[in-house]
């Protein structure tokens, strides 16, 4: 284990900073294992807690601030771009907007613990016109909670972490190959799963050109705008003739929708 510890001691803070930054910026490289190892090293007095948390916090805040500023600059457009990485862009945009609308900036306290919301909360805060100081305050608190949890796990389970590191050390060069291959397999599996679901979703959707064609032919379906209130405030446009109905209202207003015609729903 000596070599791994020596390596981490020499480059540890840079690795912690880089890993957290890359994950927060959107790369599929989880930072939790690094934080756990750092926590175990803190227990063994090989690393100091404050510099570890400081480097991790800096990486997190830097990445989140970049997303916040992109959100402010690009508005709601950026949400669709970020959500393209998720399984369903429409429900991703709507779901995260709803969550942010309900909980506001304090939702940044637990955003890091919710997959998906983690990446989209900073640009969403920017798109919704929140101020940078307020964003930095809530995001720093939320980041510290998340980073602190990872380090605390490593601190508590330092013995198990030490054993894993020892095994990896025994494997030498092959440890890197195994870890790299495992990471590549996880990314490949996620990519394949997303492509499969996206293909199914694409078949179930109506392309804009087909909808336009139906409207021009006088055989227009009933169009329902299911965006939430904040999306309407930011973008008051709508497809001509569309009914305005939020997802929460649909059940109560089912009677307004015709059963003999096709219905097309859209959001942001």
């Amino acid at each position: 284990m000596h070599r791994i510890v020596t390596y981490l001691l020499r480059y540890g803070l840079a690795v912690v900073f880089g890993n957290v930054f890359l994950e927060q910026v959107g790369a599929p490289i989880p930072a939790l294992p690094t934080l756990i190892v750092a926590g175990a090293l803190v227990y063994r007095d090989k690393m100091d807690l404050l510099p570890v948390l400081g480097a991790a916090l800096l990486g997190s805040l830097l990445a989140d601030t970049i997303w916040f500023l992109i959100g402010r600059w690009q508005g709601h457009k950026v949400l669709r771009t970020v959500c393209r990485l998720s399984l369903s862009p429409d429900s991703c945009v709507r779901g995260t907007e709803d969550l942010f609308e309900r909980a506001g900036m304090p939702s940044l306290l637990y955003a890091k613990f919710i997959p998906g919301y983690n990446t989209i909360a900073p640009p969403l805060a920017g798109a919704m016109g929140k101020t940078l100081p307020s964003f930095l305050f809530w995001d720093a608190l939320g980041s510290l909670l998340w980073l602190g949890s990872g380090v605390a796990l490593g601190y508590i389970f330092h013995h198990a972490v030490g054993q894993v590191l020892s095994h990896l050390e025994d494997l030498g060069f092959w440890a890197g190959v195994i870890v790299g291959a495992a990471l590549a397999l996880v990314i490949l599996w996620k990519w394949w799963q997303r492509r499969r679901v996206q293909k199914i979703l694409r078949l179930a959707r109506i392309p804009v050109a087909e909808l336009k064609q139906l409207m021009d032919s006088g055989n227009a379906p009933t169009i329902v705008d299911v965006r939430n209130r904040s999306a309407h405030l930011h973008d008051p446009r709508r497809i001509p003739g569309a009914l305005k109905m939020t997802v929460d209202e649909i059940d109560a207003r089912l009677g307004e929708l015709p059963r003999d015609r096709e219905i097309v729903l859209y959001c942001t």
Partner: protein
Amino acid sequence: MDKGFTRVRPLEGGLEAWSEAGYLTEDETIVAIRRPG
């Protein structure tokens, strides 16, 4: 939706895709009606 509707489909790309394709949109306007007198 299995509540007796003929067919329900989400619009691919949403309002953004509709607008990017150059199709017409209309603005939601709030109209205040003042009673005469």
